[in-house]
């Protein structure tokens, strides 16, 4: 038996139950509690664990204001990134008088490095549907949409199956739970546009238009899908709702912090020993997440490296990079906003000391530039210029003004963009300028990349002890920058070298290093 048990990767001790494993010990699994423990394609398993009790309670014992008030009291905040109080959003829509209202589940989780919503939809799709039913009862809607990314085929399949099964049992459709209320859900697949995660763009996409955002106000709660009052909530937000209705707002508030109650799921990835989905109460520190749950930072080969930590990217392309000084900061919506980052949807990408932060910022800028819908000028043109400036830096063409232009441009885009995508696009760069000033200045002033990742800033160097003077690199060099006698160590002329790397590839003795 002993040999089959999971062994802790640090202590080497065998773990008898899941709770002995460090990865799980520090987690509080609420939303993910049943993921992996029930068959997501069988509604009976969800019901046997108390599923749809909250929806039944909402439909038979509560009126719409009670429902919204309970959610407001719980302090639940939107998990999609903004952190807007869910109850307040619902009350806004509840007050509107209209014959038609909609509930939309935003499952267009496009942030690179985030997969919380996918896991909830694949592991426990009925919890999302139950949340939607309660939301519909709360605002008085009779139709709902789940907008899922096309890149998540399994999530699409499971949520469709769940809707089908719930309809069969009379939980969805006409006269739900035998009352006079009705609620039906459509599942719609996205078509590969990141901006559709923005609520007004998402609605445009459902209406069969280009997924471009619209100015707010009017807010969707007043005039949303097809001009009707609409609430849009993230998958995780909706999955939290049944628990609040079932156990009450007070119980929900017992976990987490005062301003950010409850738990949050994070997708922990990158250079960390244990990657995967985690759920912790708000107020947990990054140190606990990365070192206790994640098991520490790894080097490029995947081995544990105790001093390897350099930064952690939180909130995807709209968040920022945090450094060692933030490791003990309790995570919550407000604590992160105050230091120029955001929880976003909850992606956590850990980076070790071999990562070049300028390259990381460039990567995110490239992403937002690609995904910018092109409607407003600050985002469309601004992200392009910011990307060009970052490219200048990595290619050694930047001068002392580049950083200042980059900073001012970033602030302008933040202020003037139409939607959340543009407003948060400069965050990765601004946090780089704030927390990794030294590294970026080294790139600009000394034309050097400390992490040795910016190819254009590296001049190859011959390692004299290894070079046998075969002359192969001399033949391969396209600009004649290498010279040297036969059987004597060769020499690379820095002034002529174009940094193409041909010599590194040609050398059979690995005698040419990427340089400094």
């Amino acid at each position, binding site marked *: 038996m002993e040999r089959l048990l999971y062994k802790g990767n640090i202590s080497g001790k065998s773990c008898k139950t899941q709770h002995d494993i460090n990865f799980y010990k520090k987690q509080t699994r609420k939303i993910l509690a049943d993921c992996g423990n029930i068959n997501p394609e069988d509604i009976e398993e969800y019901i046997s664990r108390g599923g749809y009790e909250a929806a039944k309670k909402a439909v038979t014992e509560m009126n719409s204001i009670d429902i919204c008030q309970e959610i407001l009291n719980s302090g639940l905040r939107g998990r999609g990134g903004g952190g807007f109080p869910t109850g307040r959003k619902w009350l806004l829509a509840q007050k509107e008088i209209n014959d038609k209202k909609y509930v939309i589940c935003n499952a267009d*989780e*496009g*942030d*690179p*490095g*985030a*997969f919380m919503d*996918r896991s909830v939809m694949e592991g426990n799709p009925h919890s999302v549907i139950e949340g939607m039913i309660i939301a519909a009862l709360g605002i008085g809607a009779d139709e709902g949409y789940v907008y899922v*990314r*096309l*890149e*998540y*085929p399994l999530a699409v399949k499971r949520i469709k199956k769940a809707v089908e099964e719930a309809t069969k049992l009379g939980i969805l459709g006409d006269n739900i739970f035998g009352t006079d209320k009705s609620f039906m859900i459509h599942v*719609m*697949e*996205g*078509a*590969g*546009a*990141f901006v559709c995660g923005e609520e007004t763009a998402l609605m445009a*996409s*459902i*209406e*069969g*238009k*280009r*997924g*471009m955002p619209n100015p707010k106000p009017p807010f969707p709660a007043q005039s949303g899908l*097809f001009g009707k009052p609409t609430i849009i909530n993230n998958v995780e937000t909706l999955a939290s709702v049944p628990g609040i209705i079932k156990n009450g707002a007070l119980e929900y508030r017992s976990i987490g912090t005062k301003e950010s109650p409850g738990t949050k799921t994070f*997708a922990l*990835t*990158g*250079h960390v020993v244990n*990657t*995967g*989905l985690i759920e912790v109460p708000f107020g947990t520190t990054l140190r606990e997440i990365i070192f206790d749950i994640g098991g520490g930072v790894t080097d490029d080969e995947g081995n544990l490296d105790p001093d390897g930590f350099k930064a952690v*990217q939180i909130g*995807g392309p709209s968040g920022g990079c945090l450094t060692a000084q933030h490791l003990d900061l309790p995570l919550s919506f407000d604590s992160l906003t105050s230091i120029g980052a955001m929880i976003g949807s909850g*992606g956590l*990408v850990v*980076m070790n000391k071999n*990562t070049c932060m300028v390259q*990381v910022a460039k*990567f*995110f800028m490239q*992403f937002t530039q*690609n*995904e910018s*819908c092109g409607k407003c000028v600050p985002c469309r043109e601004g992200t392009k210029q910011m990307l060009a400036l970052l490219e200048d830096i990595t290619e050694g063409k930047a001068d002392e003004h580049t950083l200042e232009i980059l900073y001012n441009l970033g602030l302008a885009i933040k202020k003037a963009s139409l939607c959340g995508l543009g407003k948060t696009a400069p965050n990765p760069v601004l946090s780089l300028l704030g927390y990794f000033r030294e590294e970026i200045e080294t790139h600009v002033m000394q034309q050097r990349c400390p992490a040795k990742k910016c190819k254009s800033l590296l001049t190859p160097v011959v390692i004299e002890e290894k070079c046998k003077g075969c002359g192969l690199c001399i033949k391969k060099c396209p600009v004649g920058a290498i010279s040297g006698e036969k059987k004597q160590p060769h020499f690379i002329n820095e002034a002529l070298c174009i940094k193409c790397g041909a010599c590194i590839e040609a050398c059979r003795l690995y005698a040419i290093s990427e340089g400094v």
Partner: protein
Amino acid sequence: MHKHDLGQAARKFAKVCEILEKYDYKSDKLVPILQAVQEEYRYLPEDVLAFIATTLDISPARIYGVATFYSHFALEPKGKYVVRVCDGTACHVKGSNPLLSEIRNRLNLPKGKTTTPDLLFTLETVSCLGACGIAPVVVVNEEVHPLMTPVKQLR
């Protein structure tokens, strides 16, 4: 038009009509309609788009706008095997770029093209597949290949 040509044209659009029928000829269902068309033809042929525009009574410009806005839609035929390399944050940090250039080299893709001339392979990048725990990821058609390295053989 010659009678024979008409028959052929009718056959060609029969599938599209079926799709349009399924979505009740509603223009707000344009995105799912185009998705179904693309699944059928592997891309969005121009005459089919024109046909949809006429049937739904919307301008071809609007359809073109939607078709070019979403990255999933292709106006040129895609290859039999669609190789999608994930370039999300986690995959990027773990080296998706060398992977991408290696595949490009092996497929012998001409510069600026994403599909091989024999219509066998199409190479694409996607922003994130949500499989970051097993980065870097490559998906060939619907099959997911985790933890790829440039050396691992692709088919």
